[in-house]
């Protein structure tokens, strides 16, 4: 249950209400919203208390969010939240493009791609150093050295970097290399010990949807991050597994408009992992922005045939230039703007 208090309610009154609720055995969480106090209540609510709260002079509105969502629930903010990743602001009416190689494949290669990502007008540089691969015989990434190369490339071109973390034990390495945004991949979406560990890392987190996760499960995974102290969360739809075999996964854009009603968090779309086919990524990106995505995440490689992972879904740098241009048009005609160059 979420309580929207009357704007202007004094801090003393808020605290008094909070303490009375805590005496009832409820956990009270406060929104960062500044326009008015908003309280979220976790725990079993006695029905008599719920009725009295609805009648309280301090309470303007009581909202029951989906499931047990509280901190990430839409009702916890007056406006959708904006997440800062370095100098990039995700959400709030701008559209961002995240691009880079699937895997960091060496210092020179990642730097070369980074330059082209920046020149194309993308805003964040992505690159995998720890790779969750289906087979243990596939390229597993360069690990910490890959993080170093990615960060150096990002700094060289002035772009914040995003990279996937798979193990809580690697949090110090991500922090030491100042990785600007930690990505939780689809396979780890419900790895709750990992979520709890990275929630405390003080970094923005990009949480991908699990390949067989419902939206409810995905948002509750985000709630783990928020409850653990992470205040900058990005959601990323990347396709779910269905019976359709024509594409790697099925891009679930149908949930985007609904998610706007359920959460205040920015929502990105990764059409590359959904499609698995580079040539259909541009129309899927356009569709994602039309459906309200705050940005798209794609993979870029100078020679996809030689990519050490996910080559078939990698765009050429020239194709990224076109995708960014199309994203600008789609953002404008849907009443938003492409994020300014970083």
């Amino acid at each position, binding site marked *: 249950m979420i309580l929207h208090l009357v704007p202007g309610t004094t801090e003393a009154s808020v605290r008094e209400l909070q303490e009375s609720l805590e005496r009832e055995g409820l956990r009270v969480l406060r929104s960062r919203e500044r326009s008015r106090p908003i309280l979220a209540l976790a725990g079993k609510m006695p029905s008599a208390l719920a009725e009295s709260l609805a009648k309280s002079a301090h309470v303007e509105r009581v909202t029951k969010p989906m499931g047990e969502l509280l901190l990430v629930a839409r009702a916890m903010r007056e406006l959708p939240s904006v997440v800062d990743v370095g100098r990039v602001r995700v959400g709030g009416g701008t559209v961002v493009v995240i691009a880079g190689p699937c895997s960091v494949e060496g210092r020179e290669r990642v730097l070369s791609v980074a330059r082209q990502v920046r020149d194309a007008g993308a805003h964040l540089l992505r690159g995998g150093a720890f790779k969750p691969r289906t087979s243990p015989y596939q390229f597993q990434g360069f690990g910490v050295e890959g993080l170093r190369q990615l960060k150096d490339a990002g700094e060289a071109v002035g772009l914040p970097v995003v990279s996937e973390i798979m193990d809580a034990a690697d949090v110090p390495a991500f922090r030491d290399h100042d990785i600007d945004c930690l990505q939780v991949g689809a396979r780890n979406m419900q790895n709750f010990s990992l979520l709890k560990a990275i929630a405390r890392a003080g970094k923005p987190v990009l949480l991908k949807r699990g390949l067989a996760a419902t939206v409810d499960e995905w948002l509750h995974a985000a709630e783990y991050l928020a409850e653990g102290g992470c205040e900058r969360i990005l959601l990323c739809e990347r396709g779910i597994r269905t019976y359709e075999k024509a594409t790697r996964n099925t891009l679930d854009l149908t949930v985007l408009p609904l998610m706007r009603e359920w959460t205040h968090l920015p929502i990105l779309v990764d059409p590359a992992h959904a499609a698995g086919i580079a040539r259909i990524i541009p129309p899927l990106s356009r569709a994602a922005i039309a459906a309200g995505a705050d940005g798209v995440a794609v993979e870029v490689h100078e020679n996809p045939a030689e990519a050490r992972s996910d080559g078939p879904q990698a765009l050429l740098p020239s194709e990224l230039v076109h995708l960014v241009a199309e994203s*600008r*048009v789609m*953002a*404008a*005609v849907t*009443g938003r*703007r*492409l994020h*300014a*160059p970083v």
Partner: protein
Amino acid sequence: MNPALRHQLRHLDGAILALLDERARLLVQTNAADPLRRAAVDDILRRHNGPFPAAGVDDVFATIDRHCAAFSIEENT
């Protein structure tokens, strides 16, 4: 006029204006005039096969360029 058609025209006008605004924002990020601009407009005219008169297309782009240039100079000074 059919209200539905009027509604569609208003939406198209809104989209045109949104795109013009976005073009102005993009242009203001650079101070330099584009020496390839005329060639780009010629290319658009060459590819154009819709009902809007070619002379009108040329006029529209000339007007856009004139106003965007003025806006760009104003924003960058």
